[in-house]
């Protein structure tokens, strides 16, 4: 509880001092998802205050959705660290890992080959007799799911694809290293999305939770689509930041 500092010489109400200290600790990463907070009784003992004050502070935190009381166990941090990422970096997952000072971990949950899917084939300009890989990846940061990605990778550009490769390098890097096509630009469409229960389970958030749905097409310089990626970032984990100038 060293992240709480109570200064009784200021006018700021004690319950607010506790609340703000805990909130700051969550935001700056001192406290992580599912960390246990001191009990109200412990707060009273250390900071010499009444139980009501401690209770008020925790009530406020519960109201803001930052912590939850679990019966018989105590009060826990139930919010995730939210990464505010400049929009120009959103595709660059290294940015998240640098901000967290932690390595990203990728886990493939589905790897398969589709023979024909009218919408996907149309979007990627594929012929009926061509093949296309589909992979679903969950990407973790600090052992918490950060995003869920579905990749549609035409077999003609990804000759020797396997699960290990998918977990090691990005689809874009694979194109640059191993194929003859030259990726030139990426078009991204951002949508608001309610997660289905399956998606929510993989991302460890509540059913129907709000998420950023980002559909990204990688094109070559002739404007031919090469790859389609669909990424789901729960709003709990990521927000985009942008500075505009007039």
């Amino acid at each position, binding site marked *: 509880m060293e992240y709480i500092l109570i200064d009784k010489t200021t006018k700021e109400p004690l319950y607010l001092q506790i609340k703000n200290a805990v909130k700051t600790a969550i935001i700056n990463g001192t406290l992580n998802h599912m960390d246990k907070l001191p009990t109200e009784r412990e707060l009273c003992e250390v900071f010499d205050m009444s139980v009501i004050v401690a209770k008020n502070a925790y009530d406020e935190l519960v109201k803001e959705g930052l912590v939850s009381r679990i019966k018989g166990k105590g009060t826990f941090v139930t919010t995730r660290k939210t990464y505010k990422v400049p929009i120009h970096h959103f595709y660059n997952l290294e940015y998240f890992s640098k901000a967290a000072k932690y390595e990203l971990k990728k886990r493939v949950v589905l790897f398969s080959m589709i023979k024909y899917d009218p919408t996907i084939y149309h979007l990627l300009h594929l012929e009926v007799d061509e093949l296309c890989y589909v992979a679903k990846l969950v990407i973790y940061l600090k052992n918490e799911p950060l995003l869920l990605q579905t990749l549609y990778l035409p077999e003609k550009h990804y000759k020797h694809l396997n699960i290990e490769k998918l977990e090691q390098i990005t689809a874009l890097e694979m194109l640059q290293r191993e194929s003859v096509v030259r990726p030139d630009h990426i078009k991204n469409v951002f949508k608001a999305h309610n997660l289905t229960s399956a998606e929510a389970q993989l991302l460890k958030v509540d059913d129907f939770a*709000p998420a950023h749905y980002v559909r990204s097409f990688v094109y070559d310089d002739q404007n031919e689509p090469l790859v389609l990626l669909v990424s789901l970032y729960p709003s709990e984990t990521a927000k*985009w*930041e942008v*500075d*505009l100038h007039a």
Partner: protein
Amino acid sequence: MLKDKIQMIKLDRRSSLSLSSQLYNELKSLILDRHFTYREKVCDKAQCAKALGITEIEVSKAFDQLHNENFLIKEDDTYYVNQYDFSSDFFSRIVKVYDAIKAMNLEPSMEEIQRKILRVDHALSQKSKFKVGSKLLYVRRLYKGNGQPLILLDLYYDLELFSNLDQHMNDDTPIYQTLFDHYQTVIKKSHRIVDVVNLPKDIAKIFHVRNQTAGFKVTAETYNQYEQLVEYTEGYSADNYVYEFEINVKEIIQDYKIMNQNI
């Protein structure tokens, strides 16, 4: 739906795929390729069936599936396209809401829902950076395209900087124009956070969508030429709203290089 769009639909009678599935795929592709404008009417079932030489039941099947997947909306048995996109300008420069709506080929209009003067409390101060106790003008405006709600804006202005703003603000002049005309304030910078939330009841109602539907929430702090905070806004839009953002692969490579140097 115009004739030229029906002509773009190709059905293959020898295919093992049913005609309704084919129509579904073709229409979905047309929508995804943005051949329609937002709220464009899809021709009625009988017309469509006649033009394509298939039964109305098959047309219904295709339309209903697209309706289920939110690509179409249905009103009194008429179907409208439910996808639209905002110009990529959103992520690159400050644009007037009206211009953005015009860029979508829609006729812009605005309805002011609420206007009042308020004092900043602790909660508002935390999110807006306005000082606790300062006096603000709060305005809630709904911007529409072809009469349909698109963007809801909650706007907050510091009345210490803009005394009597309430009297100068009118529906016909863009707010930034008013700020310039009466207070010589020039908008210089806007810092935005783009988030996704499940829309609360009152806002979902304004957009005619189900309670808790996901929508964008964009908060913005806007500064003038003296780097004073002149405006704080919270903007909402519903789940049929999309933003586009394009990046160059060269920029990505550059970005990786810079990051790796820093590490």
